């Protein structure tokens, strides 16, 4: 989800704050080019007659949007990019001045602030206004309010896709049918009306086949972290890996190639016995293997990452990197059941799962990735993630015997990243893990 930002801003930020960055892998280079090309196209979209859909990452219908001949813009990604570029604080203040409560999601306020300041995107050019707001209501109530707010500003049509919640971690035929019916009767007609052309269903199926290929390789990348030492960091590094597939590139040949290259690079790292690359270069011998629940903080992303990399703590699995699809549980986009499969995709995003299923997933990760600790980064902005995390903490400790850590920050509001406080907590946590190891706990 963060890849766009990360690719665009990592080198500068990391260089400014520490040693020389690691040399770019082929996959990183490719991702950078893909993004630059996409933003370039977005900049020229209006003059090229290209219709623009704003939509959200979880439950995004990228193949459908592309098969309808449209391009997407993802406001969460704009917000996190603003966070990484140090702009979010000002945007949030601007939105609060316009009556937005200090209590609510800072992604929303950051996006509104950016809109009020001319909607300048990550590449420094103005983002095109939406022709359609595709409100895929998956896993987060705030999405609905967010697009109600944008609709007030842009006065453009909204297409609502109501995705039911999975309270019991199970997709029922009624849920699937409800979504497929909405796609057929409401979403596809809305896309066709705005794009002015009929949906090409063969193109849709072909895109879904491409999605599936990329998803296979992404899962191989995730699962590489079961190896010791892990060749990847599945959280801080992981947010780079999810970039193409969570954003505009799922269902494209570019994504297939990106993930094939990434997988090959990761397999090569395993062969060479290498660990992941951190913000300041290769991370030293793996000392802690962690599972992380919750999104990262974006305003101090690299400082946050360094608190782990400095301690040679590697995140082998994370739930944030599953908000745009739980491919490692077996889901794949299926060209033979295109709409059913899109429905299952929307239903299966991580934050659309009931709390018991989220705990089961975290437990599975802790066991399968042989983590010696797990950490919850609880962000103030996001009730969808955060409400219930203290029970998650208790329950996971009870089930696995692995000690959990709990820190609080925010997505893009710099006021809520207490650097010294978080650092102290993490250091104490890592010391505790060391002490446990010294006492013979695996």
């Amino acid at each position, binding site marked *: 989800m963060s890849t766009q930002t990360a690719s665009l801003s990592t080198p500068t930020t990391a260089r400014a704050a520490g040693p020389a960055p690691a040399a770019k892998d082929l996959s990183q280079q490719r991702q950078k080019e893909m993004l630059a090309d996409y933003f370039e196209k977005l900049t020229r979209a209006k003059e090229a007659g290209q219709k623009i859909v704003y939509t959200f990452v979880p439950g995004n219908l990228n193949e459908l949007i592309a098969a309808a001949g449209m391009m997407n813009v993802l406001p969460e990604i704009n917000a996190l990019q603003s966070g990484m570029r140090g702009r979010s604080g000002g945007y949030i203040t601007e939105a609060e001045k316009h009556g937005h409560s200090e209590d609510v999601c800072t992604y929303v306020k950051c996006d509104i602030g950016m809109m009020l300041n001319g909607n300048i995107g990550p590449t420094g050019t103005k983002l095109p206004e939406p022709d359609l707001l595709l409100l895929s209501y998956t896993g987060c109530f705030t999405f609905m*309010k967010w697009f109600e707010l944008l609709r007030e500003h842009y006065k453009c049509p909204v297409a609502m896709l109501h995705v039911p919640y999975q309270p019991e971690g199970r997709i029922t035929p009624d849920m699937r049918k409800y979504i497929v019916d909405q796609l057929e009767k409401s979403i596809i007609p809305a896309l066709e009306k705005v794009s002015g052309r009929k949906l090409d269903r063969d193109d849709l199926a072909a895109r879904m086949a491409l999605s599936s290929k990329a998803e296979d390789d992404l899962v191989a990348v995730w699962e590489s972290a079961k190896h010791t030492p892990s060749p990847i960091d599945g959280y801080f590094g992981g947010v780079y890996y999810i970039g193409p597939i969570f954003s505009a590139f799922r269902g494209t040949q570019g994504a297939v190639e990106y993930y094939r290259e990434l997988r090959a690079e990761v397999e090569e790292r395993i062969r060479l016995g290498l660990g992941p690359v951190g913000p300041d270069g290769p991370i030293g011998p793996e000392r802690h293997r962690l599972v992380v629940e919750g999104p990262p903080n974006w305003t101090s992303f690299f400082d946050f990452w360094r608190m782990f990399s400095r301690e040679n703590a590697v995140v082998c699995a994370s739930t944030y990197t599953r908000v745009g699809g739980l491919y490692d549980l077996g889901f794949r986009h299926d060209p033979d059941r295109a709409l059913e499969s899109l429905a299952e995709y929307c239903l299966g995003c991580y934050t659309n799962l*009931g*709390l018991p299923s989220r705990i089961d997933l975290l437990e599975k990760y802790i066991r399968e990735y042989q983590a010696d600790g797990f950490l919850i980064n609880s962000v103030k902005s*996001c009730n969808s993630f955060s409400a219930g995390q*203290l029970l998650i903490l208790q329950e996971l400790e009870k089930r696995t015997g692995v000690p959990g850590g709990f820190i609080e920050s925010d997505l893009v509001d710099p006021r809520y990243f207490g650097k010294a406080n978080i650092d102290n907590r993490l250091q104490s946590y890592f010391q505790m893990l060391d002490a446990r190891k010294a006492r013979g706990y695996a």
Partner: protein
Amino acid sequence: MSAPTDPCAPLLARAEALLEDLSLHGVAAWKAAHGGAPAIGIMPVFAPRPLFEAIGVLPVNIYGGGDRVDVIKGDAYYQSYICHIPRSTIEMGLGGQLDALDGMVFPSTCDVIRNLSGMWRMLFPQKYSAYLDLPQTFEAPLGGLFYRHELSRIAAELVARGARPLDADRLREAIIVENRRRALLADLASLRAREPWRLKASEAYLLTRAGAVLPCAEHIELLEAFLAAAPERPVRAYDNVRVIVLGAFCEQPPIGLIRTLERSGCDLVDDDFQLGLCAIDGAIPLDEDVGDQSPLDTHDPLDALVLSYTLRGQATATRYIADGVKGEALVNRVRTLGAEGVILAAPSFCDPALLDQPMIEQALNDAGIPFTSFKYAENSAQFQTIREQAGAFSDSVKLWGAA
């Protein structure tokens, strides 16, 4: 000479006693009198009560502990930046105050209540726990059918736990009774709007909220008795500012806060405190002609219940307003009721209410309607600041017609 007695006082006292019955003794008594029939808690905002009554289940709207539960254990489950109602509800559950309930239903109000549904399942595995996904699309073949499945599913799950089978005749009967209640609530609302000194907001609140724990027929008796006695109340008209309160539909303000607003020169002529009972405009359209809603049909009572929500659900912060204009319903309400201003009162950290607020403010600004806003928590104890703010607001409206 002794002061004239208020014939409504015993009715209001009963309603207040129900509000204060946090341990649900009344619910336990109902169960005992009904052979142990199930009672089910319903978190805010809305679930259709006739469905439960039709299968012999007592629906009990749960609004947390208000300002009379000390939250100790509940705080261990929530970070400081999450609203108060889930923590006091957990406190009550862990403390045994909800033991009279056989289960809980969590409607799709917001992410907090959604996640609480899973927490409940884990903390109280022996009890029934269901998430009710209310539709956010309102066409009969889409959200209508989905919602019908949801209601059928919940009914079937409760039947498997001892409720009576869902039967069309009994559901029809429950809807007819509910429609009678709806008419009485409308009468209550119009009395309050007409003569707010005869029925104060705090009294209307108590009378309405009584319906959260009473079977519908008993609530009807209470409302009828009040409406019959109300003309005899000794009252004195005041020259207050007429305001509508909006945003307090889930975590409830303490009754003391509502009374504080009344004492600050405001007649609260309408509010959304008890949205759970008032979320539908008008009657459930049983056997009514509502145009083609196929495959649903108002002659089928379950379909009628579904259509009451899809066609007549109020424009609230928790409902997607598809083609409507945000705040339009409120502006119309202000005009219809002759209100002079709006108080936006939201629980701290309440996503739906607070995310809605800028759009509502815009609509009020555009319509030239004065408003003020504040936040509260269900356990707020100090009302002085709010009293001053509401007092200044009512003064400014009186003086200049704008805040």
